[in-house]
């Protein structure tokens, strides 16, 4: 920005244009929202049916006791990760393109963790016993088992949700104070209360900057720890294909990869819907595409190392499991996964494709599918073929599982759509700051 007057006009424009997205929605918005809510309601009905009839209505049985529900859990926790990466890690690295995406990415994190949190409950079967996971002693004064990775999960995921929600809210406080100025009636009262009386004084900014820095610094190791812990749900067992030291970094890379793809999936339509083409530009998308390409290469490297570890393990079971993945009953899913996660993203090596938004949107859908397949392949193939051929078996998801998986997307997208109309989707304060530099 050159002159002071231009800067003032830009500040006014940013506020008006970003907050214009919060005005009364158009019909297309309502139709999409109702569709998503309908899907979520369908999932609730299917879950209710499963609770009434028992877990027999799903395809879960011996030997495959973890199927699409756990696949969905890992998938959604993974989706959440990129939110923190874009928001916290890029903040610590002072990456300026972060400003275009960080708010959507943080919202995505919170909603994805909420969606993920549903799946252990759905998978429990007797959901009314979920509180057995909470750390308190039972009637015989025996406590929960803190040596179990499943218990670590409870702490990791609930910490992740809490810190991500605080980070999301804190980042929004100044923008909520701006939104307050533009609103009337009940909405004004709501934004006034949520902005806590923020006025941007010297003391407020001084402590706010420190708080934001600390939250970013806390959220960054969380990115690494939460998906590492999710990976240990598998790696701490002795099952071939699961019991490997590469799982933690492999899962973290995969999580960031899938989450980055989901950011693109969400932001491309949101940018059009809310009219933010001026603030979320092709340059921003190109930066995100580079992260996608980089994490795709990391994930591909992990696929190679995984096979290498099995080949050099000297264990017939490890070798058998990986050969089964490549050539067994689930081979098409495995190849599909390789195609979506390792082959298709290589197109991003070409600058023209990195800057083509419809192409990026299509590619992000491929990656979403590929990363869901990856989790399914990891979970199911290892359980379907363990050590003893006597106990081998095949798992096929039933319609009820497919319905609940689909419903989770409905729930997630509905939450995101509500967010786009309820809160400023771009960090207004940050855009102003970057423009003035």
């Amino acid at each position, binding site marked *: 920005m050159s002159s002071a007057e231009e800067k003032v006009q830009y500040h006014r424009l940013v506020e008006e244009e970003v907050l214009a997205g919060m005005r009364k929605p158009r019909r297309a918005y309502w139709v999409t929202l109702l569709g998503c809510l309908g899907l979520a309601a369908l999932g609730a009905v299917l879950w209710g049916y499963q609770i009434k009839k028992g877990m027999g209505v799903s395809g879960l049985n011996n030997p495959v006791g973890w199927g699409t529900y756990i696949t969905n859990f890992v998938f959604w926790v993974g989706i959440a990760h990129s939110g923190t990466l874009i928001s916290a890690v890029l903040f610590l690295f002072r990456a300026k393109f972060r400003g275009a995406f960080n708010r959507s990415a943080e919202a995505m994190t919170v909603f994805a963790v909420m969606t993920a949190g549903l799946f252990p409950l759905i998978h429990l079967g007797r959901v009314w016993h979920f509180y057995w996971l909470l750390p308190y002693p039972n009637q015989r004064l025996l406590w929960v088992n803190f040596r179990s990775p499943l218990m670590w999960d409870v702490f990791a995921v609930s910490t992740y949700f809490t810190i991500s929600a605080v980070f999301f809210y804190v980042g929004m406080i100044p923008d909520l104070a701006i939104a307050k100025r533009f609103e009337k009636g009940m909405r004004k009262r709501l934004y006034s209360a949520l*902005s806590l009386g923020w006025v941007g004084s010297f003391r407020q900014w001084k402590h706010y900057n420190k708080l934001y820095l600390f939250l970013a610094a806390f959220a960054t190791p969380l990115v690494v720890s939460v998906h590492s812990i999710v990976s240990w749900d598998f790696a701490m067992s002795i099952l071939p294909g699961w019991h490997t030291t590469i799982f933690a970094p492999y899962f973290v890379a995969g999580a960031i990869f899938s989450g980055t793809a989901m950011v693109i999936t969400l932001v491309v339509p949101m940018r059009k819907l809310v009219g933010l083409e001026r603030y979320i530009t092709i340059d921003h998308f190109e930066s995100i595409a580079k992260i996608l390409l980089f994490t795709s290469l990391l994930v591909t490297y992990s696929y190679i190392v995984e096979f290498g570890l099995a080949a050099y393990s000297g264990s017939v079971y490890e070798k058998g499991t990986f050969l089964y993945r490549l050539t067994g009953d689930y081979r098409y899913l495995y190849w599909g996964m390789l195609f979506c996660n390792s082959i298709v993203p290589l197109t991003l090596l070409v600058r023209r494709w990195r800057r083509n938004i419809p192409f990026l949107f299509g590619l992000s859908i491929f990656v979403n599918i590929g990363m869901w397949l990856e989790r399914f392949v990891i979970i199911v193939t290892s359980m379907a073929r363990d050590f003893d051929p006597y106990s081998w078996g095949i798992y096929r998801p039933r319609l009820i599982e497919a319905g609940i998986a689909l419903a989770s997307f409905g729930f997630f997208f509905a939450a995101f759509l509500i967010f786009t109309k309820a809160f400023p989707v771009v960090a207004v304060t940050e855009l102003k700051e970057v423009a003035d530099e």
Partner: protein
Amino acid sequence: MIDRYSFDAKGAFLDKLDELVKSGVPRKSINTFTPYPVHETEELLDRSQSAVRFFTGVGAVAGCVAGFAFTIYTVLSWPLITGGKEIVSVNAFIVIAYELMILVGGLAAFAGFLFLTRLPVFRNILSDSVEFSRKFEITVERGERS
């Protein structure tokens, strides 16, 4: 009485602030209101570190200690061997202590921020008289001038 200076741009605002400080106006009587954080104001008005870090540090240490204390207390209160692991399985408990360190540290940082900024300010919340403005403003409490 309060003197109020209002600017549309950061440059003029910083020039005035610098001028006020150099003219001997006590730093404590000066307050600024800006639409985004202006780090130069810290250089001019108050270079001390924010005390949020103390809240964060104490919270993080408390969370970590609580994580170890809690897990060790529970296994010692009923020493049941599971999976052939030691009763006090420190390696496993690191995970719980690590997560609690981040959780309590993060929440303490937020609580510290609210305490230090005296937020929420209920008298401001529903009032339009004091707002988060587009302008860069300086206020000087005249009664405290030297």
